[in-house]
């Protein structure tokens, strides 16, 4: 018994040690600090202690902690991607139009080289999402890019709100209706998936409380219904894959009927057509800068989407949904200056403050403010210029990417059977199979985007 107790204590100790995140101390000197909170400050230092921003000002002494000389450089908050599928080994549980019970956080893969490449593009936080095969997909994971940490637990952004993936339009119609000949095959059918699911969750809750008061047997435990109930109670933020204006309005109507308000529409290529409705509902929008025409439901798109949404008061972000775009979200954000004349502040918000709001983590990240996490990117030029290059990417005060110490080979899991790592003909064209339909669409189709 004593021995058993001892081993439990040891186990707990080991677990606690293993899950301790590295929190760094760092001083960034004399940069142009774009705070996204309190304007742009020239010749300013940022001090990070124990992973948190401790002080912003001039002439800060850091003692003997690591110091980055940022003279002539631009210092911005770590970039946040509200839509990614990097660092997870499973994306789509495409077996049922409703799979609220599954969770991509069960399949975190900290070895994905794409995560390092995202860091090299200044991305410090990403929202690893379930795919878009199901009307109600699985729950998602918000992760911090602590490249080099091997324990998947250390990649989770602790205390980030729970999120779940919903999906409208062609993808669920194709997978279930066309693929398996079960509903939904139409946008009408998709609406009823939500109504049926929410009604079931309400009944489940009623049956549970009735059983409690009557002291009778409760209904069979259902993680799916438990999760749906949590959505109805506002404990989970919905991130809904969507394209067309009509289906966006439909989901807002359903949510209104059930009193649910926390929603961010993803992709939302026709969001610009219903921008006033989105703003009134308080719905958010996370969009591509310029992707369109990869399927019929995005044929009537415009690269001015982000600008129209922003000008209509919708909290808007620009996401990647791609292991390629995530490498240069700062460039994607800058395109809103060509397509819609957004100001520097508005454009940078699309990849910092706004995605933070959409993930419910704006008190932790998204701007350079005392008390927030020490997540920062240092560029050698303005981040919205084509000539701005990320030089340092810092997570919790730890430099996770340094352009001067960029290794020739960053892989951390090396396949012993591959003497030379595999060569891929289509370095870029693989992004179609990478995104929301990962694990569902037939791979290898040339240029067949299925986001």
């Amino acid at each position, binding site marked *: 018994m004593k021995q058993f107790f001892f081993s439990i204590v040891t186990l707990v100790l080991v677990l606690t040690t293993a899950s301790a995140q590295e929190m760094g101390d760092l001083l960034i000197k004399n940069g142009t600090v774009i705070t996204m909170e309190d304007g742009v400050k020239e010749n300013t230092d940022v001090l990070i202690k124990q992973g948190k921003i401790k002080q912003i000002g001039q002439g800060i002494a850091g003692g003997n902690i690591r110091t980055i000389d940022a003279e002539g450089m631009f210092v911005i908050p770590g970039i946040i991607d509200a839509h990614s599928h990097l660092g997870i080994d499973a994306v789509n549980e495409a077996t049922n139009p409703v799979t609220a019970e599954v969770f991509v956080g069960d399949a975190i893969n900290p070895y994905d080289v794409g995560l390092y490449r995202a860091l090299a593009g200044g991305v410090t936080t990403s929202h690893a999402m379930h795919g878009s095969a199901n009307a109600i997909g699985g729950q998602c994971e918000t992760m911090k890019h602590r490249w080099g940490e091997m324990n998947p637990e250390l990649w989770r952004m602790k205390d980030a709100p729970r999120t779940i993936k919903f999906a409208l339009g062609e993808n669920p119609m194709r997978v279930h209706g066309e693929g398996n000949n079960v509903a939904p095959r139409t946008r009408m059918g998709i609406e009823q998936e939500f109504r049926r699911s929410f009604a079931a969750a309400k009944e489940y809750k009623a049956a549970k409380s009735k059983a409690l008061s009557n002291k009778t047997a409760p209904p069979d435990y259902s993680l799916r219904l438990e999760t749906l109930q949590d959505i109805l109670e506002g404990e989970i933020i919905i991130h809904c894959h969507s394209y067309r204006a009509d289906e966006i309005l439909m989901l807002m109507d359903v949510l209104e009927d059930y009193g649910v308000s926390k929603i961010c529409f993803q992709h939302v290529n026709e969001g610009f057509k219903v921008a006033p409705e989105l703003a009134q509902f308080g719905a958010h929008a996370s969009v591509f800068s310029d992707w369109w025409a990869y399927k019929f439901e995005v044929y009537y798109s415009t690269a001015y989407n982000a600008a129209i949404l922003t000008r209509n008061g919708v909290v808007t972000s620009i996401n990647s949904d791609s292991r390629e775009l995530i490498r240069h979200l700062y460039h994607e954000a800058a395109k809103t200056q*060509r397509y819609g004349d957004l100001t520097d502040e508005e454009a940078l918000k699309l990849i910092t403050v706004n995605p933070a709001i959409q993930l419910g983590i704006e008190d932790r990240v998204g701007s350079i403010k005392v008390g927030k996490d020490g997540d920062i990117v240092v560029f050698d030029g303005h981040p919205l210029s084509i000539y701005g290059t990320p030089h340092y990417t810092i997570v919790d005060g730890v430099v996770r990417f340094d352009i001067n110490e960029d290794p020739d080979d960053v892989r951390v899991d090396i396949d012993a059977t591959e003497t030379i790592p595999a*060569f891929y003909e289509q370095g870029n064209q693989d992004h179609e199979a990478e995104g929301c339909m990962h694990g569902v669409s037939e791979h290898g189709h040339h240029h067949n985007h299925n986001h």
Partner: protein
Amino acid sequence: MNRIKYSITLSVIFFSSVMAFGQMVEKSQQGSYLLKNAEIYTVTNGVITGDLKIVNEKIEAIGPNLDAADAEVIDCSGKRIYPGFFDSGCKIGLAEISSISLTQDHNEIGAYTPHMRALTAVNPSSVHIPITRLNGVTSAMTYPAGSLFPGKAAVIHLHGYTPEQMSAGSQPDILKWPSSGKRNRWDKRSKEDIEKDQKKALKKLKEFWKSAKVFAGMKGDKGYNPQLEAVQDVINNDAPLIIEVNKKEDILAALQWVNEENINAVFSGVSEGWRVADSLVANAIPVIVGPILQNPSRASDKYDAPYTNAGKLAKAGVLVAIRTTESENVRNLPFNAGFAANYGMGIEEAIKAITINPAKIFGIDDEVGSLEEGKLANLFVCDGDPFEMKTRISHVFIKGWSTPIESRQTLLYDEYLERDPGLKIKD
């Protein structure tokens, strides 16, 4: 009064049809234009401050204080003029909606299809075209990509009602070099199977080429043999062969083959060109690189390998052109070049890679690729560095046609920025 009424009715009809479909753009115009007081980035002759005169389809004159005569004068003070940008490899006009296979015209069935002609299937009404022009892209090589010999590409200008009107003349043959690499991340073939497939494809290639040479030597009526006929221009050294090849070992093997066969070759893709830059220089092989904005080819590559490739090749002395491989987003060509510029290529070389270099590669540098008197008026006017996203393009001329600065995407912006009626009427 009647006339006023009539024109009001007409304008309402016109107005509403634009609003309803958002895809009709205004007509282009051709005539005489004097672009006054500009910084003229000629590409081949430095930067000239002065005027540029367009008469019909050509640049008539470049110089200080040109006589306007009856030309329309466009004040370009504080503005720059560049030659139109040229995408050296894309699918514009051959693909409309990626997920709908019946809108894809670049991927024919058959083991050998060198007789397929992209120009036949270029859709002059593709919605992608006006959208692309707005970023200063005026010309493109649009290419098929099906079998080993997928067909002839079409070099086109992005203006015209028929493929013939769009054609820039050149229709180079394409060869997809059999790869010893994986196709993509989902390619589950074993190493042995990849080797076997490549061997088989190389054998097919060599047999085909042998037949094509026999065909070349035949006298009299050769009968109907479109595949062998199609590559005779390459065999006679009248046209280049564009060889899609990416992996280091494959590039070297392709080099050996073109030397043995005495082929005038251009390599495209060349994602590992930087590993064999010296061999490419030694053999004077021009390359078409891109997209620049893509993932590295190997998990072990540095993150910036695709960004730096074009610059490394240019520095080594290779003639480099840049492509997007896109269709709907060929408009990102200047940003691809911009990334190359920032990652070692430099602005001037990157501009060449999307202007004069492709013109040289496709043998039309006497017509386009730079701002020179007598060349086609393929050019655009902008208010700054054309690689910067903030820069605005105010005029785009293609073969002297002043094309409208609007597209379905700008029309949707105009219509929806301040939507009227705004919010739905609540009951």
